[in-house]
C-alpha cells in the first residue's frame, strides 16, 4: 500500500520533470537550430537578455516602476471593490428592499465583460491611474458582491433558528451568525476577484499605459521584441501565482475552523 503510494509519487515527480524538461529542451532545440524565427519563439538566451534589459530599466523605465504601476493600481481598485462590494452584497442579502433596488441593476451590468469597460474608462477618466482603478474596480466588484450575497443567503436556516431560539436579535443574527457562517464563501469571492483584478489591470495596460507589465508586453509587441513580451508574460504569471499563494495563506489564517484543513 505505502510502497505503491510512494512509487506513484515518484513516478509522478519523474513524469512531471520529464514533461517540463522536454518542453524546455524542445524550446532550446527548436530555437538554436533556427527552425523558427525569434519573433515566433524567442530563444532562451534572448529571453535572458530581455529579462536583464527589463531588470535594468527597459526604455529607461526602472523595473520597480512597472511593478509599482501594476500592483498599486490593481490593489487600489481591488480594495475599493472589497470595501464597496462586500457590504453591498451583504446588505442586499439581508434587506429585501435593497435586493429589489440593486438586484436588477447588478443583473444588467453583470453580463458586460470587464474588458468592455476599458474604452469607456479611458473616455471618462483618461489614460492615467483613475481610469485603470475604475476598470479594476468594476471587474473585481462583481464577484465580491455576488459571493457576499450568496454567502448570507446560504446561511443554514437551522443556525439562524438555533440562534434565535437562544435569544439572538436581528443584529446578532447578522453579525454573529450569518456573516461568520458566510465568511468562507466571501473569501472565495475575494480570491476570484483578485484573479480578475490582476487580469484586468494587465488588459487595461495593454490598451493604454505608460508603465506596468501590460505596457512592457505591448511595447515588446510594437517593437517586435518577442523576448520582452515573453518576460512580461512570465512576470505577470509569477506575480499572479504569488498573490494567489499569499491569499490562500491569509484565508487559512482567517478561517481556522474550516473542515478542509488538516490541523486537527
Amino acid at each position, binding site marked *: 500500500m505505502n510502497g505503491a503510494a510512494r512509487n506513484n509519487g515518484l513516478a509522478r515527480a519523474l513524469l512531471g520533470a520529464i514533461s517540463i524538461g522536454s518542453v524546455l529542451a524542445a524550446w532550446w532545440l527548436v530555437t538554436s537550430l533556427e527552425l523558427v524565427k525569434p519573433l515566433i519563439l524567442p530563444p532562451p538566451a534572448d529571453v535572458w537578455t530581455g529579462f536583464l534589459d527589463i531588470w535594468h530599466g527597459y526604455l529607461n523605465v526602472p523595473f520597480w516602476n512597472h511593478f509599482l504601476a501594476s500592483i498599486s493600481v490593481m490593489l487600489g481598485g481591488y480594495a475599493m471593490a472589497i470595501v464597496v462590494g462586500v457590504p453591498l452584497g451583504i446588505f442586499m442579502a439581508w434587506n429585501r428592499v435593497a435586493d429589489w433596488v440593486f438586484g436588477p441593476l447588478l443583473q444588467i451590468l453583470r453580463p458586460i465583460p470587464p474588458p468592455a469597460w476599458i474604452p469607456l474608462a479611458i473616455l471618462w477618466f483618461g489614460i492615467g491611474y483613475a481610469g485603470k482603478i475604475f476598470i479594476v474596480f468594476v471587474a473585481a466588484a462583481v464577484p465580491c458582491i455576488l459571493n457576499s450575497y450568496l454567502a448570507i443567503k446560504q446561511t*443554514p436556516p*437551522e*443556525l439562524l*433558528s*438555533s*440562534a*434565535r*431560539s*437562544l*435569544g*439572538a*436579535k436581528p443584529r*446578532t443574527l447578522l453579525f*454573529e*451568525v450569518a456573516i*461568520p*457562517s458566510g*465568511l468562507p464563501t466571501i473569501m472565495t469571492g475575494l480570491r476570484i476577484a483578485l484573479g480578475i483584478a490582476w487580469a484586468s489591470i494587465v488588459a487595461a495596460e495593454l490598451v493604454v499605459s505608460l508603465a506596468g507589465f501590460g505596457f512592457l508586453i505591448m511595447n515588446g509587441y510594437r517593437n517586435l521584441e518577442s523576448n520582452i513580451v515573453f518576460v512580461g508574460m512570465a512576470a505577470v504569471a509569477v506575480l499572479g501565482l504569488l498573490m494567489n499563494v499569499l491569499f490562500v495563506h491569509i484565508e487559512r489564517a482567517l*478561517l*481556522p*475552523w474550516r*473542515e478542509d484543513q488538516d490541523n*486537527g
Partner: protein
Amino acid sequence: MQNDLSYENVTMRFEGRSGAVQALERFDFQVNSSEFLVIVGPSGCGKSTLLHLTAGLYKPPTGRILLGGAEIKEPGPDKAIVFQNFSLFPWKTVHDNIDFGLRINGIPATEREEQIKRVIHLIGLEGFENHYPRQLSGGMQQRVAIARSFVLKPRTLLMDEPFAALDAQNRQIMQEELVRIWQTQRPTVLFITHSVEEAVFLADRVIVMTRRPGRVKEVIDIAQIAGENHWRSDPFDEVIRRADFQDTRSRIWGLVKSEISVRN
C-alpha cells in the same frame, strides 16, 4: 400536576408553490410541568412544525400556544430548541458555542464562565473546550448542542430527532446521558423521534400523531404503565428485554404503522 404548556386548537398551513399544505389541524394538548413528552408519527405529519411553533420561530394563523399561561410571541431561551444535525456554530469552539446564549442574554462574564464549566462537566467534555465542532464526533457535538441550550436553564427544552444522526451505539449512550442531564434541572421536554423504542424508554407520555394534517391520535401514559420505577432510570439494554416494555413498544408501533400509508 401543573400544566405548563398548552396548545389550543393550533392550526398551521403552508402556502407553497405547489399549493397549500395543511401541516397541523386543531392540535389540542396540555403538557405538564417537568414532563418528558415524546412525539411520534409518520414523516411529514407536522411534528417539526409543532416544535417550531412552540419555539416561537413562527406563529400559528389560528389557535394559541401558551407557555406558563402566556402566549408565545417570539423565540427565546426559555424554550430552546435542539436540532437533529446539531447546528453548532462551526466557527466557534465548544466553549464559545456554549457561551453564545449566555453572552447575548447579557449574563456577566464571571458567571458565564462558571456556568460553562458546570455544563461542560455535566456533559463530560472537559478538555474539549477549545475544540471546534468538526473535531468532535457526532455524539459529542450533540452533547454540546444540548449543553448550549441547557446552560440557559430553559423552562422547556425542544428536541427535534436529536439522536437520529447518530449510530445505534452512540444513540443508546446518548439516551441514557440525556436522562441524567435532564434529571439535574428537569425542564419540560418535547422530544420528537422516529424510534418507538426511544420514545418508550424516555417518555412520561407518548403522543402518537395522525398523518397530515397532524392531530393527536392517541396518548400513551408510559409513566403509568412503567409504574413507580420508570424504565429510563435503568440501563437501556436491561429495560428493552422486559415484557411490559416490549408490549408497549409494539402497541405504539401498531398505532404509528396504521398512519403510514404507502400512497403518501
